[in-house]
C-alpha cells in the first residue's frame, strides 16, 4: 500500500517535473528544423525560475478571481495525473476518483477559470482572448465528446486503464479502423488543445494570440504558475494520447523501481515520436484563418463519427 502511494506521488511528480522538458524539446526541435540553434532543451525551466523571482504586479481592476485562478489551474493539473496511467498500467490509490470524463471535467475547469480571469481585469486583450478561446471550445467540445463516446463503445468502459489493457491484449482491436480513426481524431484535438499551429500562432505575443491573450495581465510567480499549468496540460494530453490510445505498451506492470525507470524511458521515446509528428505539422502547415478553424475540428469530428460507425460494424 505504501509503495502504491509512493508510486502515485511519483506519477504526479513526473508530470510536474518533466512537463517543461517536453515543451523545451518541442521548441528546440522546431528551431533545429529551421536550421537555427534554438534556446536549448532546458529553457522553459530557466523561464519559470526567472518568473518565480520577479515581483507581482496586479491591475487595479482585478477581483478575487484574478487571485485564485493560477492556483486553481495549477491544482487541477496536479489532480489529473492521479486518474490516468502515467507510469503504471494498474490503478493506483485514488485513481478511481474519476474516469475519462472526470479528467476532462477537471481540465475544463482550469481553462474555464483562466477564461474568467481574462475577462476579470477588463483589459481589451483579455476579453479578446477569452472570447476566442470560448469560440474554440464550442467547436472542439463536440469532437471531444464524440471521441469519448467512441472510446467507451470500443472498450465498453470509460476507465483509461481498461482501454489500455484492452488494446494491449487484442492486437485485432488495436489495428482495427475504429481505433485508428480515434487516434486521428484525438491527434487533431491534441494540436488544438496544446496551442499548436493550425489554430494557434507560433509566436507568443501578436494579434491572433489566444492562450497568451488570456494571461496577458499576469506577472511574476502567477504567470509562472499559469505557464507551468499549461505545460502540464500538454504533458497530460500527450500521456493520454500515448499511454491510452497510440502506444499502450511500455508501462510498468508490477511497480518495481526498475519498472518505473523503464516506463519513464518508454515515455520519453513515445513523447519524442509524438513531438516529431507535432513539429512536422508545425513546420509544414501555416496558421488557419479564424473563419477556417472549424475545418480542422470538423475533420476531427468526422473521424470520431467514423470510428463510432467502425465499432458498430465490427
Amino acid at each position, binding site marked *: 500500500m505504501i509503495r502504491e502511494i509512493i508510486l502515485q506521488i511519483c506519477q504526479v511528480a513526473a508530470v510536474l517535473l518533466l512537463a517543461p522538458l517536453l515543451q523545451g524539446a518541442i521548441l528546440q526541435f522546431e528551431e533545429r528544423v529551421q536550421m537555427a540553434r534554438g534556446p536549448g532543451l532546458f529553457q522553459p525551466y530557466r523561464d519559470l525560475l526567472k518568473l518565480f523571482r520577479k515581483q507581482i504586479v496586479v491591475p487595479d481592476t482585478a477581483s478575487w478571481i484574478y487571485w485564485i485562478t493560477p492556483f486553481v489551474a495549477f491544482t487541477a493539473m496536479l489532480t489529473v495525473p492521479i486518474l490516468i496511467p502515467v507510469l503504471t498500467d494498474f490503478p493506483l490509490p485514488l485513481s478511481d476518483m474519476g474516469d475519462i470524463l472526470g479528467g476532462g471535467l477537471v481540465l475544463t475547469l482550469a481553462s474555464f477559470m483562466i477564461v474568467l480571469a481574462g475577462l476579470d481585469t477588463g483589459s481589451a486583450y483579455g476579453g479578446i482572448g477569452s472570447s476566442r478561446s470560448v469560440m474554440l471550445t464550442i467547436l472542439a467540445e463536440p469532437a471531444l465528446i464524440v471521441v469519448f463516446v467512441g472510446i467507451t463503445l470500443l472498450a465498453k468502459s470509460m476507465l483509461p486503464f481498461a482501454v489500455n489493457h484492452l488494446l494491449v491484449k487484442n492486437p485485432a482491436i488495436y489495428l482495427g*479502423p475504429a481505433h485508428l480513426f480515434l487516434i486521428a481524431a484525438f491527434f487533431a484535438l491534441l494540436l488544438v488543445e496544446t496551442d499548436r499551429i493550425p489554430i494557434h500562432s507560433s509566436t507568443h505575443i501578436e494579434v491572433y494570440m489566444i492562450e497568451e491573450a488570456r494571461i496577458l495581465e499576469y506577472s511574476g510567480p502567477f504567470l509562472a504558475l499559469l505557464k507551468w499549468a499549461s505545460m502540464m496540460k500538454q504533458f497530460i494530453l500527450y500521456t493520454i494520447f500515448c499511454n491510452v490510445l497510440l502506444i499502450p505498451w511500455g508501462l510498468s506492470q508490477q511497480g518495481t523501481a526498475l519498472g518505473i525507470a523503464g516506463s519513464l524511458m518508454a515515455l520519453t521515446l513515445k513523447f519524442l515520436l509524438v513531438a516529431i509528428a507535432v513539429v512536422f505539422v508545425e513546420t509544414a502547415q501555416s496558421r488557419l484563418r479564424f473563419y477556417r478553424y472549424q475545418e480542422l475540428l470538423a475533420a476531427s469530428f468526422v473521424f470520431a463519427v467514423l470510428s463510432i460507425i467502425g465499432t458498430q460494424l465490427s
Partner: protein
Amino acid sequence: MLAANLDPVASSIFSMLAIVSLVLAFVMLGSRWLNNYLYAFAAESWVIAALSASVGYYGGYPELYLVAGLTGFFRGLFLPYLVWRIIYRLDVAREIHVFVQPSSTLVLGALCTVFTLTVAYRVGESLGLANTVAVLALTVMLSMKLIGFLMLTVRHEALSQILGLLILENGIFLGAQILVPGMPMLIEIVILFDLLIIVACFGVLVRYLVTHVGSTSSLKLRRLVG
C-alpha cells in the same frame, strides 16, 4: 476464398488499409487544388501497396510482394511524377470554376458510399460472406469506383479527370487484392503498363489541347472537330 477464413488481426489490418484509402479518395473529392489530388493519390497508392504486401503475408502469396513493390513504385512514385510534370508545365493550380462545390461533392460521395454499402451487404449475403472483410472490401471498391466516376463527371479540368480515372482503377485493384488475391502476375503487370500508357496519352492530349484550344478545361470544348 481468403476473405472467408482470416484471423482477426489480418482482417483488421485489411479493413484499416481499405478504409484509409477510401478516406484518401474523399480527400481528393473534397479538395480543389490539383497538388492535393496528386499527394492523396500517391498516398493512396502506397496504402494499396501495403495492402498487397499484407495480403501476400497473411494469405501466403509470395508473388504479391513483387506486386506491392511494383504498385508502390509505379502508382506511388512514377505516375504521380508524370502527372506532376504535366501540372507543372500547364501552370494550372486548381479548379477555378466548379459547378458543384467541393463540400456538396463530399455529400454526394457519402451518399454513394451508403449506396455501395447496401449493395455490398446484398452481394455478401448471397455469396455467404456476410460479416467478413469481403463486405468491406466490396464497399470500398465500389465506392471508390463511384467516387472516380463522380470526379470524372463534376470536374472539368483534364487533370482532375485523369486522376478520377486513376482512383477508379485504384479501387478495382484494391478490391481485387482482397477478394481474389491469386491473380496471375502477368495481368498485374499488364494493368500497370495500361496505366502508364493512359497517363502518357493524356500528357500528349493535354499539350494538344493547350496549343489548339488554349485551355484544358472541358467547359471550353464546345465544338466537335476532327
